[in-house]
């Protein structure tokens, strides 16, 4: 009586089971076959994802794995169902080529400008140009409901946490139309993942905004590929030259054709020291490029998101002295309250232009 038969034990253990089971070896083989099918059918997408990885050993390994699999998949004709499906869902439409009218950007050379390419955080105050006290006048002074002031907020995932709040705040004037466009994990280092200059040119051409708010950098501290296809190691001189050129390209795309206002938002202080140092280094590049351009305002966030000792803090006192959490637990992104603070600051920056200020005073 002590020993139950195997069937009795099974039924006691799993009375709700509805199916006939299969031997584990068979299931393991079936699962592996399934994964193999998925890998080959999806190999073109997996290869694309591998190419988007930051330059380094992980990317090299991923490419070494997915390149031959994708080649084999293509040779066997296994990649077409995915491609057909993507076409059916409108996912694989090639981007319409945009006629980029970019002002030629001078390549930065440190000797010409007598300015260090990268300033340490401690040297930040040594920059020759300080942020402008007031923004220059915008040429169009009469914005109306029919011809509203157009504001665009673009950038990486940071925009997710303040873009919609700024839009909402700006649109308290019925003569303002604002749009927020975050692209997660994007930046200026990897146009192969998302080509911001092309997208920005498209926005300028199609929507012709009056002011643009930009934030980049969180995903940019990685190796970048130069025009000739070689990888430039992060923060080496060639990398700094190329990255500054890209910053300048974006700034000029926004401000060169027309007298638009560009607010370039700095990266806020970060919890992890190494990451914070990298972001401060990028901030110095943004600040230096903005200093050369009249219509670009660099918006520093260090004062807004640090405690009394100048350090990163998740909780900070608001105007009434109450502590509010301004950062998410990841130590990087802004919380809802942080987004509100930043949006208020940006609107304040925009309103430094008297004619723009009138939009909210009517």
């Amino acid at each position: 009586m002590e020993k139950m038969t195997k069937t009795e034990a099974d039924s006691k253990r799993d009375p709700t089971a509805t199916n006939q089971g299969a031997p584990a070896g068979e299931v393991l083989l079936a699962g592996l076959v399934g994964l193999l099918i998925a890998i080959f059918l999806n190999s073109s997408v997996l290869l694309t994802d591998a190419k988007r990885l930051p330059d380094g050993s992980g990317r090299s390994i991923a490419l070494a794995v997915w390149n031959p699999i994708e080649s084999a998949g293509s040779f066997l004709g296994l990649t077409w169902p995915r491609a057909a499906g993507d076409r059916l869902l409108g996912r694989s439409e090639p981007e319409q080529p945009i006629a980029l009218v970019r002002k030629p950007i001078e390549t930065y050379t440190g000797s010409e400008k007598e300015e260090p390419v990268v300033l340490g955080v401690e040297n930040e105050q040594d920059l020759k140009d300080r942020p402008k006290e007031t923004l220059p006048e915008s040429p169009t002074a009469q914005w109306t409901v029919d011809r509203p002031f157009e504001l665009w907020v673009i950038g990486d995932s940071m925009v997710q946490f303040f873009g919609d709040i700024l839009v909402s705040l700006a649109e308290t004037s019925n003569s303002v139309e604002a749009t927020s466009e975050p692209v997660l994990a994007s930046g200026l280092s990897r146009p192969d993942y998302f080509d911001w200059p092309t997208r920005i040119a498209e926005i300028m051409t199609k929507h012709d905004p009056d002011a643009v708010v930009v934030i980049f950098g969180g995903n940019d501290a990685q190796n970048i590929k130069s025009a000739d296809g070689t990888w430039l190691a992060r923060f080496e001189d060639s990398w700094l030259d190329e990255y500054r050129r890209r910053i300048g390209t974006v700034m000029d795309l926004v401000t060169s054709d027309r007298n638009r206002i560009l607010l370039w938002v700095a990266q806020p202080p970060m919890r992890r020291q190494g990451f914070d140092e990298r972001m401060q280094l990028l901030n110095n590049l943004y600040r230096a490029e903005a200093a050369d351009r009249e219509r670009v305002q660099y918006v520093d966030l260090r004062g807004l998101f640090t405690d009394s000792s100048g350090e990163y803090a998740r909780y900070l006192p608001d105007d009434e002295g109450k502590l509010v959490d301004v950062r998410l637990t990841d130590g990087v992104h802004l919380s809802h309250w942080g987004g509100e603070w930043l949006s208020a600051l940006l609107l304040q920056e925009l309103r430094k232009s008297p004619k723009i200020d009138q939009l909210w005073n009517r």
Partner: protein
Amino acid sequence: MVWRVVIFGSSLFFYGWWNWRFIILLLWAIGSNWLAGNNIHRCRLSGAQDGVRAWTSVAIASDLTLLGVFKYYDFFAVELSNLLGMGSALPLLELTLPVGISFFTFQAMSYVIDLRRGVVQPMKLLDFAVYLSFFPQLVAGPIVRASEMAPQISTRPDPRQVASGEAFHLILRGLFKKVVISSWLGSNLVDGVFADPQGHSSLDALFGVYGYAIQIYADFSGYTDIAIGCALLLGFRFPVNFDRPYGALSLRDFWRRWHITLSSWLRDYLYIPLGGNRGRTADMYRNVLITMLLGGLWHGSTWNFVVWGAIHGAALIVERSLPTGRLHPIIRWALTFHVVCFAWIFFRAESVSGAWDLVSVIAGFSADTQRLNAGVVLVVVAAIAVQFVTKSASARLVHWISRWPAMVHGIAFGIGLVAIDMMGPEGIAPFIYFQF
């Protein structure tokens, strides 16, 4: 023995992949609760009731300390500082919340309490370690009781009977809910409405709330499906965690269908010890309210979750005090669904004031729309309609799939993965319940 070591090692690797430092927390929870559990059992056998109480208290205090330090300390420190007008006088820890801490501490507490009650026998250390760290449910449940898992861990799962059809079906279903439904609703409707309620019409805001109700269900039940499916492939069967909750005709019914393993945990280890339905009506209402408030706080240390719990508690009390059972089933369903949706507004909003903003927008009765289109309406309506598919129909589908050869399951699984990846957006947000 070996298979337990492999599962335990895999679970630690899985957990440590995210942040290896938090493995120490998990090991502490395993060690402290197992040790306390053994002592509880020993004291119980020898009739030393003081010892039973003391060891139970030690174990629960240890578990609550973990939760308190990592999840609640900063919240209470900030609220206290603000209340007393002390600025940031109290030191803030600003710790990263270890993923899954609310789930594994609740499992650990259920083990020691069940030992005290004599409901379960002490588990061997390795068995208990597997129980607490088992990777399919470690980070977002379901909250499995020792009484459900111990018998399954103590004997090796039968390798001749793997429920591949049911397992692959559940994994694909869960991925579809998460990758396609939840992500799509989030990016096309919900996120925009909750980020800027004032910028939307009443109709958009209302559908934003309906959309969130579907999104959080698809997200969380999707994770549970995947967890149950993975466990099945390893020969373990987890309890059901969701049973078509939006088909509920009352809030009591809803809580028997939504996050069942949490609601039954709260019932067995909080509501009943508080007195449950015993005593005066007022006592029962108090017990309901406390249980729901703490259930809200379990989700996170913000006032939003407290308000969410309070709404459910108050609604349960109203439901018990009024003869709602006499209403037509359609009216009961509509009332229940909308109370649940109303509470979700506070659950999802960034702040309580933000939630009220959304409520005021909905109450404004403006019917123009920016967000609604046929696709959004179809997804929301279809997701609600699916809640009324009978259990037997689902069981028949699973039974039919289970009759296929294992190789067909594998091939269908592979094709399904590609199809889901194709339909999903680029960049999938983490599971909502990972933050709890």
